[in-house]
């Protein structure tokens, strides 16, 4: 089956012009996309931004569940949750398996609550075993576990523990008593002597929800934005914090799909380990094949010419002729890793070549990505010029959508190279697959990667065109191309992710390689968590209302001229309808880069 796939996809590659010339293909693609069962309708973001303000509200739900189930007081519920790392399901499981007593004792929650007899002895004195003073009972405090010491000693104990960073599990002072102290008592006593330390204690308790919880993590932004992100169900995802920082939730590095976290860690380490000079040279320059001077690429396509006049391919460094199109150089193809090199050179050299092959491509795409992000400015200017012109063309969302699609695919493409480096390197998966198997899969993957690469370059070419000087007909043509290519690259990206998830990583025995699934809208923006529950339901209502109005407000004619890529059919029409309602300015469109939204 794999072979056949290879053949057919290779065939497609040959006919790549097919898409560009055929107008109907767009509609086909649109329909396909709509009927694609994989395509989930846009729903509320499942990840949440937790700010300093909403931290309490965020944990209230978990606390409530535990308090209700076990009829506990708040601080005992918190003690339990801290011990079981905020995993409510785990608490329920332990309750069923081991019973209430074990559940409590393991977490240090006292089983008996003895609040009796205290009042009767309030006049007498007792000795505190710590300072050995005889003190009146009103200067003594008895914990839930039944142990009684003087307030002074308790306070000292709490201060020492809080300063040791043990706020979340301050135990009773008595020997072999593992009960966790009542947080309210701690707060009261510490507050009398060190109000700032009591505040610190409170914050530590609250932040346990972030630090002792695998579904919540601090946003790794530098400088730190103060937010944390909570995800639902799947920790293998990429999110964007409200501060704009995008990251992989699982490893807290930059978003790196379709590379797995393990691969990405290896890759960044490898890139760092290479000596600085070698690194700089491989990263920034290529030797000219004729005069061997290092040449730096400062823009444009992959056909570079040295000052000596020699033209060469930026990707492989090989000398070429001067005839080229944007996406390929006549008679030259180097996207695939060639086996014959391997035979000639010994192992070490082969490994270096191999690394350079992938690193260069990875670097080339990240560099292009950086250069293209400068396009935002120029595109903005171009659109402004066109909008100023008196013409029939009104809607230029296809430009920004196309640009965004370009960013998105460029990203996926660049990270696909480190992935391929490790996937087909034979180091990580030696025991898992036979060589032949791997080779077939490599071809399959590289076919998809190459297709994507070709289309991304084309898209880049059209978006870089100075279309603001063109006639309307020509702009219309470019528009078609951009829309068309946007759809294609989106589909190809999705296919590549699917190929990686199911055909490559899915077949592995040990599931240590997980990747965040592909979202054509890009990395999910976590939504702000409402501070109170009432606010949340209110928001939900608002959204309902909005959707109602938008369904009515969408007109058919919007569709073909409106959206750049199929993935936002639902959303772009929504966006337009919102504009009519006067909501447009305040609403975010997931599909646009942040600063474009700002402009809107």
């Amino acid at each position: 089956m794999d072979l056949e796939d290879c053949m057919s996809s290779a065939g497609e590659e040959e006919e790549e012009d097919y898409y560009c010339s055929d107008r109907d293909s767009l509609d086909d693609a649109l329909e396909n996309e709509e009927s694609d069962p994989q395509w989930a309708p846009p729903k509320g973001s499942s990840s949440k931004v937790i700010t300093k303000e909403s931290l309490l509200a965020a944990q209230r739900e978990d606390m409530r569940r535990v308090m209700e189930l076990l009829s506990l007081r708040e601080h005992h519920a918190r003690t339990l949750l801290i011990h079981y790392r905020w995993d409510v399901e785990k608490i329920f499981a332990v309750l069923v398996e081991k019973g209430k007593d074990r559940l409590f004792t393991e977490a240090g929650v006292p089983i008996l609550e003895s609040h009796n007899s205290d009042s009767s002895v309030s006049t007498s004195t007792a000795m505190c075993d710590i300072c050995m003073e005889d003190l009146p009972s009103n200067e003594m405090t008895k914990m839930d576990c039944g142990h009684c010491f003087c307030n002074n000693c308790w306070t000292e104990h709490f201060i020492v523990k809080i300063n040791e960073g043990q706020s979340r599990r301050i135990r009773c002072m008595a020997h072999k008593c593992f009960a966790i102290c009542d947080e309210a008592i701690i707060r009261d006593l510490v507050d009398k002597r060190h109000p700032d330390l009591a505040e610190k204690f409170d914050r530590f308790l609250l932040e346990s929800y972030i630090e002792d919880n695998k579904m919540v993590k601090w946003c790794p932004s530098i400088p730190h934005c103060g937010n944390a992100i909570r995800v639902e169900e799947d920790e293998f995802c990429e999110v964007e914090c409200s501060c704009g920082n995008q990251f992989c939730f699982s490893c807290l590095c930059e978003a790196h799909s379709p590379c797995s976290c393990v691969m990405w860690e290896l890759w960044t380490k490898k890139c760092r380990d290479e000596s600085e000079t070698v690194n700089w040279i491989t990263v920034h320059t290529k030797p000219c094949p004729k005069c061997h001077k290092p040449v730096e690429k400062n823009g444009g396509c992959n056909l570079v010419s040295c000052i000596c006049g020699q033209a060469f391919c930026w990707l492989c460094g090989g000398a070429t002729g001067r005839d080229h199109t944007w996406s390929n150089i006549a008679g030259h193809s180097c996207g695939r890793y060639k086996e014959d090199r391997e035979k000639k050179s010994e192992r070490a050299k082969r490994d270096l070549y191999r690394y350079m092959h992938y690193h260069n491509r990875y670097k080339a795409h990240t560099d292009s990505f950086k250069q293209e992000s400068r396009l935002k400015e120029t595109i903005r200017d171009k659109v402004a010029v066109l909008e100023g012109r008196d013409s029939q063309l009104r809607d230029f969302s296809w430009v920004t959508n196309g640009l965004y699609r370009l960013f998105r695919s460029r990203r996926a493409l660049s990270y696909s190279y480190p992935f391929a480096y490790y996937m087909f390197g034979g180091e990580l998966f030696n025991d898992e697959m036979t060589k032949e198997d791997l080779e077939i899969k490599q071809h399959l993957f590289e076919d998809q990667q190459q297709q994507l690469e070709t289309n991304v370059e084309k898209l880049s070419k059209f978006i870089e065109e100075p279309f603001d000087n063109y006639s309307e007909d020509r702009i219309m043509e470019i528009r078609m191309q951009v829309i068309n290519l946007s759809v294609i690259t989106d589909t190809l990206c999705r296919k590549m992710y699917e190929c990686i998830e199911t055909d490559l990583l899915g077949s592995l025995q040990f599931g240590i390689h997980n990747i965040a699934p592909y979202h054509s809208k890009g990395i999910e923006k976590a939504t702000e968590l409402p501070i109170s529950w009432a606010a949340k339901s209110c928001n939900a209502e608002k959204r309902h209302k909005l959707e109602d109005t938008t369904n009515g407000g969408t007109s058919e004619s919007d569709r073909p001229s409106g959206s750049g890529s199929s993935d936002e059919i639902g959303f772009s029409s929504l966006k337009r309808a919102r504009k009519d309602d006067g909501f447009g300015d305040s609403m975010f469109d997931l599909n646009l880069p942040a600063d474009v939204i700002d402009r809107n």
Partner: protein
Amino acid sequence: MQASRARLFKEYKEVQREKVADPDIQLVCDDSNIFKWTALIKGPSETPYEGGVFQLAFSVPEQYPLQPPQVRFLTKIFHPNVHFKTGEICLDILKNAWSPAWTLQSVCRAIIALMAHPEPDSPLNCDSGNLLRSGDVRGFQSMAKMYTRLAAMPKKG
């Protein structure tokens, strides 16, 4: 800081009172520094340490009693949980199981108990631990007895 001083003073008075009550332990406070103590403890009977007198040095932190005192043997002793060279003691209540309810006196008692019941599975003195773990109780006892005689008993003649 004042709390630790006050508490140590209390303990000092307590020790004066109890001296007769516990003949195995003799706790002495340094004349000029209440945070430095020494103790003489008698080796428990029916152990290879019987008949020996062992000297302990206490160094009390300012956070005492919230933090445990540092204790080490000044007298050489062959015991799995005592470092042969430095005299450092591996005892849970002196580390993470410390409770402020313990006193210097009760620490001495705990150390005597440790001498009677060594725990060869967490040895600071590997040779001694290995003897016990391999079941060579006689070998261990004769070694321990020898060091007791050499270091912990008044020299005869």
